[in-house]
């Protein structure tokens, strides 16, 4: 992360921070909730970017860790334990543990095998969720909002929003430091040339596994927040298309930039929200066919939008050199 990115990050976070007062002025509290959802999924996207953009680990099952986080909150709530100081750390720990186990097996593979084995693990959890009769199975279960000893009231939209924003800012800061640390260097270097790093005596597998576990843990936090936002948990959160959507947010925003995925999440979710409405303007009932426009938009982003929204900003506002990186390992080595 260079200076431009830091500035872009700060500006973006500041823009998000003024949303609740603006919404209050215009008496439109709905937008606070809508953007809280954006920020929560942005958190998941940022965690994926950490392993995908920097580590070249194309995890196609990232939604599984959101599911673990969400189900941890849901299950505690089911047994009447609403204390967020218990729920949240355990949600992150549980996701980290599952991430560690799945990661340990998945990282033995590479390339497309990795994409598919992470997908397979997520599918396993998805079907497990459907079979959890005790916890509502496919219907899911309601989850009361977490309590934080009176410090933060999650039933208050603004307080909830700022909690999410604070989590995101903190995660961005931690990951920013991590990427620039020795640990981050090894992960980044092993993306471009793993054999060389191994020859230099680094156990790249362990570094990558640690990165994978950290990402899973952050994604679990996002899931715990998501359960609180919806007051509801269901296997739907782990559906493979959601893993795909999180990945799209990363690409759309700009891989390997940390702040890019935040912009990508906002772009994707707002497009999903407003695209049908825009289509209705041109033709009645056209909105239900929004996928016919969304599909080609995704293809266009891949084909022409190198670097995503982040690059757009970087080029326009800080014209030095494109800040986006190319990424995603190809090949079967």
């Amino acid at each position, binding site marked *: 992360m260079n200076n431009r990115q830091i500035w872009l990050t700060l500006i973006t976070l500041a823009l998000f921070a003024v949303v609740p007062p603006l919404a209050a002025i215009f008496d439109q509290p709905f937008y606070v909730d809508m953007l809280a959802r954006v920020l929560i999924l942005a958190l998941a996207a940022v965690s994926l970017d950490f392993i*995908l953009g920097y580590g070249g680990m*194309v995890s*196609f099952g990232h939604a599984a860790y959101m599911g673990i986080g969400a189900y941890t909150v849901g299950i505690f709530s089911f047994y009447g334990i609403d204390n967020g100081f218990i729920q949240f750390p355990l949600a992150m720990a549980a996701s980290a543990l599952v991430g560690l186990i799945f990661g340990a*097996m998945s990282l*033995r*593979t*590479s*390339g*497309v*095998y990795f*994409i*598919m*084995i992470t*997908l*397979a*693990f997520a*599918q*396993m959890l998805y*079907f*497990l969720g*459907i*079979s959890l*009769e005790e916890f509502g199975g496919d219907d899911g279960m309601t989850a009361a909002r977490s309590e934080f000893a009176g410090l933060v009231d999650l039933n208050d939209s603004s307080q909830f929003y700022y909690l999410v924003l604070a989590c995101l800012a903190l995660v961005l800061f931690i990951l920013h430091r991590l990427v620039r640390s020795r640990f981050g260097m090894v992960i980044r270097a092993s993306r471009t040339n793993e054999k060389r790093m191994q020859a230099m005596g680094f156990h790249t597998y362990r570094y990558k596994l640690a990165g994978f576990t950290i990402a899973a843990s952050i994604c679990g936090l996002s899931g715990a927040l998501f359960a609180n936002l919806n007051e509801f948990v269901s296997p739907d959160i782990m559906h*493979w298309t959601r893993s*795909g959507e999180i*990945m*799209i947010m990363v*690409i759309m925003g700009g891989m390997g930039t940390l702040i890019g995925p935040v912009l990508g999440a906002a772009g994707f979710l707002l497009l999903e929200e407003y695209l049908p409405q825009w289509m209705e303007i041109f033709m009645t009932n056209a909105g239900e*066919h929004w*996928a*016919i426009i*969304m*599909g*080609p*938009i*995704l*293809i266009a*982003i*891949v*084909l022409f939008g190198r670097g995503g929204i982040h690059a757009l900003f970087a080029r326009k506002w800080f014209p030095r050199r494109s800040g986006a990186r*190319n*990424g*995603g*390992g*190809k*090949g*079967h*080595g």
Partner: protein
Amino acid sequence: MDPLLLLEQSFNGLQFGVMLFLIAAGLTLVFGVMDLVNLAHGSLVMIGAYLATTLVAWTDSFLLGMILALPATFVVGALVEVVALRTLYRRDHLDQVLATFGLILFFNEVVRIVWGPISLYSGLPDYLSGHVEIIPGAPYPVFRLLIIAVGLAVAGIIYLIVAHTRLGMLIRAGASNNEMVGALGVNIKSLFTLVFALGAVFAGLAGMMLGPLTSVESGMGEPLLILAFVVIIIGGIGSIRGAFIAAIVIGMVDTVGRIFLPVLLRAVVSDAAADTAGPALASMLIYILMAAILVVRPRGLFPARTG
């Protein structure tokens, strides 16, 4: 456990397996030769089913409709390759995953607009709706036997093409080292289009034969797509032999597993627990199998690529 029932279930597993093979064959060829992860391969299954159903209705002949649908899916496959996918070969897998994910959204919606949201009716002619009592007391649908026969025949044809023709030589060369093929002076562009369209025909054929069995609807390809990926990953990317073996294994494990797992569990735990855990475990079974195989053999059972 009734041995005759087990035998009948093996037939069911075999039939499911050859169906998976038809879908996986194209996927693994495209993957092996062009190094393309095509999530939209399931859409080709769907398009095959829709085209066949429509053509059968138009020509009022099951056979004629099916035969016409084959070149139709070939054309669709070639078009998709030329218009959308060709530019993706040089991109990394991540871009391919996303772009073809976009294609899925697009195709599902196109089908909904063109054919409407309601599932199409697709039936069987009288000469195919009969039964044969191959196993005493268990009449088996003729059409399902036909699927097994067609699937095995196509597997044979693919084997002959890959092992004994010039096209097959190029495919094999491409799967192990695709820069080499270009260096040999082969028109790589048309080779890629041909391979992709052939894969589309196999997928479309699977869709055509699925039509009379299942509902022909938008999005029908995706559950099969994920299974087909499991097959080619287990079999080893680019390997037709691997895809065939893995498809049969997956077909058997899934079919036999989901029927007998609850029964087996009932013997170990309480009925209620078995009813809960059995189907859950059965639906996870193939993913567990895949993860286990990849942990032991990270590049599948028969990896084709050397590099």
